[in-house]
């Protein structure tokens, strides 16, 4: 009995040491920092193992892979903070460039096509939000339904065939064609949304609605508006990401994105410190989370690890990262 008591108190004092030590204090406060360190260690590992990891070509490749997912993850963070989720965003990613394509087919300028794609994306987000909020259906179900509907729509209007991305000139370079343009877009999106989240009313109301929806309503926050608005944001970003991708690869694929990019985005957000049950999260963290995921994927590819093993290791990495996250949150609470 007394033995278990001492080990208990040892654990307690260890925990106190861990949480009161200034270095660990920093990591507990700055959840993003610990993930960033893991990212840097991974880069060093892959660079020593492959010696091409930090080559210009690979970096650009990594940027492009990261950017599209990071843009979606940034929006998904807003929903996860609310305790909501959008499973359909990867399918909006596939639909938006087709809307753009058909608008241009109708002899509108490319810029109108881009705007049409973004508008339709935002509208899908609006519908997701309204169905979730007004009909009170969990967003997991709502967006699972719209995932299939949007996919069906994309396949129908495209007949299942890819198309060449329209447009020439500077706009192509700006909208994803240039080597660094996607990453620049991602950084802009992440910084703007992080600012919205931590420095504006919208962000504060998002935290409030996700943390305590009844309390938020009691102080007079229009929680329905906050929810619907964030559904619009994530779908809009899904469309933007899809359009950027279509300019990058110069073709529009009805099977692009889908659940793969959606799950990568959510995994990145969670690895970056966003809780799936709402109330906490950072957009910067999701960017770092997505970067780490991309580093792992890219590194494994360079190492020549087979695609089968790859998913296995990826899954384990995600689980470990999430566990770490939960532990860190518990330590943070105990640290007070």
């Amino acid at each position, binding site marked *: 009995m007394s033995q278990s008591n001492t080990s208990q108190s040892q654990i307690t004092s260890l925990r106190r040491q861990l949480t009161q030590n200034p270095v660990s204090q920093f990591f507990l406060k700055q959840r993003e920092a610990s993930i960033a360190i893991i990212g840097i260690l991974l880069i060093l590992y892959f660079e020593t193992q492959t010696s091409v990891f930090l080559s210009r070509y690979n970096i650009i490749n990594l940027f492009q892979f990261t950017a599209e997912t990071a843009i979606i993850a940034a929006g998904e963070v807003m929903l996860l903070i609310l305790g909501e989720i959008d499973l359909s965003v990867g399918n909006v990613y596939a639909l938006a460039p087709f809307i753009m394509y058909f608008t241009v087919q109708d002899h509108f300028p490319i810029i109108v096509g881009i705007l049409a794609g973004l508008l339709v994306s935002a509208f899908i987000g609006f519908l997701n939000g309204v169905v979730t909020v007004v009909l009170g259906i969990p967003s997991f179900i709502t967006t699972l339904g719209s995932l299939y509907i949007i996919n069906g729509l994309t396949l129908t209007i495209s007949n299942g065939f890819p198309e060449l991305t329209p447009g020439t000139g500077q706009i192509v370079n700006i909208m994803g064609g240039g080597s660094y343009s996607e990453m620049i877009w991602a950084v802009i999106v992440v910084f703007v949304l992080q600012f919205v989240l931590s*420095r504006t*009313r919208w962000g504060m109301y998002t*935290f*409030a609605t996700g*943390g*305590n929806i009844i*309390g938020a*309503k009691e102080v*007079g926050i229009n929680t329905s508006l906050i929810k619907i608005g964030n559904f619009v944001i994530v779908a809009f970003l899904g469309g933007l990401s899809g359009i950027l991708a279509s300019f990058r690869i110069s073709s529009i694929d009805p099977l692009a994105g889908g659940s793969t990019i959606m799950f990568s985005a959510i995994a990145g957000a969670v690895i970056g410190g966003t809780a799936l049950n709402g109330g906490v999260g950072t957009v910067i963290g999701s960017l770092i989370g997505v970067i780490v995921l991309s580093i792992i994927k890219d590194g494994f590819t360079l190492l020549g690890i087979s695609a089968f093993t790859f998913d296995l290791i990826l899954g384990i990495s995600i689980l470990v990262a999430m566990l770490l996250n939960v532990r860190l949150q518990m330590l943070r609470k105990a640290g*007070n």
Partner: protein
Amino acid sequence: MAEASASALRVEHISKNYGAVTALRDVSLGVKYGEALGLIGDNGAGKSTLIKIMTGYTAPTSGAIYVNEEQKHLHSVNYARSLGIETVYQDLAMISELSVFHNMFLKRELLIPRTPFLDNHRMKREAQEFLLTLGVKLPSVDVEVSKLSGGQRQAVAIARALFMNAKILLLDEPLAAMGAREGAAILELINNLKKKNVAIIMIGHNYAQVLEVCDRINLLQRGVITYDKIVSSNSMDELNDIIIREYRIDQKQAESSAAADGANIVH
């Protein structure tokens, strides 16, 4: 300026049903400026429901609400607030994940002039100063509310309601989690607000505390007001009598139904 005898806030024939549950049945009450009305009653009597109707959070099934003797349709919390009604909810309506000062400024944030950005410096400073004037002691206004004690949380909720110079203040068990000293400080605060002509409705389970600040007492029982009197030296005895009588009735009912059960078993 309202005349002296006019109500600041008054409800008439308020009923509220939640599906099959009747929370309030034809309730009428009012409070004047500079007066404190104590609302007491058992758990589930309908007190919080009444507060939520008067603050625009829920709509009554039927009945009318008058603010400054003018009938108002309180369609939202924000509208009720624009009429000078502030509330401390029983659940406190605090967001655990947000800091103390963000909670205090929730829905009335200060922005950096001509930008959409929160002026955290000013909110922090003003929250700190205000809590200091109320004598509320906290580690810092920067900490998350989840890290406060129950009483501290309650103090912040009260401070938030007082922050905006409410003309009508609704308090749903504001002292429930308070220590004796902190509770006494809040009671003194309420007395001061009365002198400043604020109209107050306070719910409480501790009769001594309620009687200390309130001028009138309404007792709500199963959705009906059964007692409405000015506070006097024998209020405590009267209330105790009612409670004891109620308890006896409850016991008799329990006994007779137990007897009926027994009879059934014999059959």
